[in-house]
């Protein structure tokens, strides 16, 4: 890698923080300067936890005109994941799709329509075979040959299989694409399931969530396009950097949980105080996601618990749309509470009832023993009746 030329010490706070300076002499045309571009990439990389070097490498790649092609498929879904992606600011969707990636097919965002759009898809697949990123949004119906979701006369199964075949990376965004989501909830009339279940044998990065946190997608896409690698995944195909921990472990209300301060019902005094929502049915202790540290759309507290509603476990197949909203779940990794046992903690003890029962039993045994010995004595020696035994009893 070429060594960057030495820069003089930053002359102003603007330069230090890389803030834009509004001076009339600066080029304000639509053309994105390299500097602006690097800035966008740096922000994006920082936001999703990639290193500065990754940003530099990406800038280099894009400067050569190599923008990674992204094909985005929509199936059974509400477009919520796309909507949440549209609301990110670092980078904003404009920078993302115009500067960072080449979004070649996206049913919500493309300008083309009908056959033109389908032709764009075919063209993109042909041009970038083996290199493009296939992003799947929405569940795939499998019942009755997959006839419940068709685009341009083709079933979702056909489309996803074809596009995934030559993809460099496959990413399932949202719970629907990851494991079925809402469409797969009981009774699941269309046999909806996730992309990993349809694309058996392929590595599918899943970014579950309802909607998925857009930064988890950005981080994964940016890592793939800059470093050519995929993040480390857990057994459900989720990037460990985003889904390695439970909500509970990073919850801002955790202190209340540890201290035993719980909201008992919606709107009560404890709820207003911002106490822990566990008893209202929070699934945070079993939900693996990073919402508690990476809120949505850069709006502070824009995530369920931040707004006072219990986590409903949207990233977890076993929880979302299966466990009732206000049912509580077990704690996955229990830790000690905010209280301490004393040095000599009284433990156990004998209750009055137990002592009474034991006393009665002992008394009965004693009595029986006495009675028995008396019987024995009266039966005892045939030669000298009662002599010795009567002496003993007295």
């Amino acid at each position: 890698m070429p060594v960057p030329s030495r820069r003089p010490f930053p002359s102003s706070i603007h330069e230090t923080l890389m803030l834009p300076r509004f001076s009339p002499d600066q080029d304000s045309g639509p053309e994105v300067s390299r500097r602006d571009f690097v800035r966008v990439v740096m922000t994006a990389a920082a936001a999703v936890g990639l290193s500065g070097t990754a940003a530099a490498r990406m800038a280099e790649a894009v400067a050569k005109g190599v923008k990674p092609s992204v094909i985005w498929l929509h199936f059974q879904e509400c477009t919520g994941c796309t909507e949440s992606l549209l609301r990110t600011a670092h980078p904003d969707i404009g920078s993302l799709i115009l500067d960072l990636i080449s979004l070649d097919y996206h049913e919500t965002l493309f300008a083309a329509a009908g056959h033109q759009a389908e032709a764009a898809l075919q063209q993109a697949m042909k041009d970038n075979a083996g290199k493009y990123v296939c992003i799947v949004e929405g569940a795939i119906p499998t019942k009755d040959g997959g006839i419940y979701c068709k685009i341009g006369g083709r079933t979702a199964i056909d489309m996803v299989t074809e596009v995934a075949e030559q993809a460099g990376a496959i990413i399932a965004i949202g719970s629907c694409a990851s494991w079925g989501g809402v469409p797969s909830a009981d009774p699941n009339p269309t046999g909806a399931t996730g992309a990993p279940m349809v694309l058996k044998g392929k590595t599918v990065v899943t970014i579950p969530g309802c909607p998925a946190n857009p930064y988890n997608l950005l981080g994964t896409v940016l890592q793939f396009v800059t470093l050519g690698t995929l993040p480390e995944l857990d057994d459900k195909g989720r990037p460990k950097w985003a889904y390695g921990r439970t909500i509970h472990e990073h919850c801002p209300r955790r202190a209340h949980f540890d201290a035993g301060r719980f909201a008992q019902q919606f709107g009560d005094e404890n709820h207003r105080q911002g106490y822990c929502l566990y008893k209202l049915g929070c699934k945070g202790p079993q939900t693996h996601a990073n919402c508690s540290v990476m809120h949505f759309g850069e709006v502070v507290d824009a995530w369920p618990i931040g707004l006072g509603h219990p986590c409903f476990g949207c990233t977890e197949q076993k929880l979302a749309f299966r466990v009732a909203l206000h049912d509580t779940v077990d704690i996955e990794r229990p830790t000690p509470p905010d209280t301490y046992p004393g040095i000599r903690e009284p433990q156990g003890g004998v209750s009055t009832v137990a002592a009474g029962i034991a006393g009665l039993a002992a008394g009965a045994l004693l009595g029986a023993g006495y009675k028995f010995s008396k019987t024995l004595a009266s039966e005892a020696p045939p030669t000298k009746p009662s002599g010795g035994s009567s002496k003993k009893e007295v």
Partner: protein
Amino acid sequence: MAVGRRKVLQVIAGTGAIAAANAVPVRAARAAKAAPPDALGMLYDTTLCIGCKACVSACREANDLQPSWDEERLHHAPLDLNGRTKNVIKLYKEGDRMSFFKAQCMHCVDPACASACMLGSLHKDEVTGIVTYDASYCVGCRYCMMACPFNVAKFEYEKRAPKIVKCELCRHRFGGAQLASTGGFSRFATGHGPACCEVCPRGAVIYGKRTELLQEAKRRIEANPGRYYQDKVYGEADAGGTQVLYLSHVPFDKISLPDIGSQGVPHVAYTIQEGLYRGFVAPVALYGVLGLVMLRNRKKGGAAAPEAQKGGRRE
């Protein structure tokens, strides 16, 4: 069949004499034990502990123990060491005086549990000095629980095939890792040492060789006059020496570290036992007295007691 009273007494007297004769070269009292030169241990300092209980969590995870639930099944909330807890932080509070206390196995230099263990299930490692537990020899007698002066060994009462549960200094994590000197202490690579020490955010509990820890404890006492109770390292000599050492700013007995002298519990037990049988005097005296009592009763009771009656007839 027809063994006369005289004969019985003769035999008893004879055996006693032989036993006494055997016991005459009295065995030297059991020598006090010393820690192995490379004994590992821990040093806990109450003045540094902030009671975060990270060690309690880390211990449970490192040892793959089920949580000791509170009533609501929300927290791992052990009240004491138990069948699911090898390490617990307790709080001593009396007026303004307070201190945290970390309870776990003390890894005694002369462990009472290993001494009481009938099959050697509990065993003191010759090199590290760790008091180890091998469940394959354990019969579940729980003598170790009775023997331990620190009330450490615990039993899995709720299990069908219960074992003894106690801290083994995370020896299962050592693997093949080698000790290397780090900042004056012998340490394993991160992830291989005792979990509680590795996770402690304030270094309130550290591990290393016992000699190094003892030196460090004395350095702290010297550097902070008046800070530590009696300027004493608990475990240096207490209970015959322990490999887990304590520095405290409150009296040791307040944080359940009893003053039990400088002799190991087994040492005391052996001394008593050997004293009892020394020269076989005590048993002979006891049986002599018992014999006299029998003789006296026999003469007094005569034909009254049925047992004596029978014997009398035969004689």
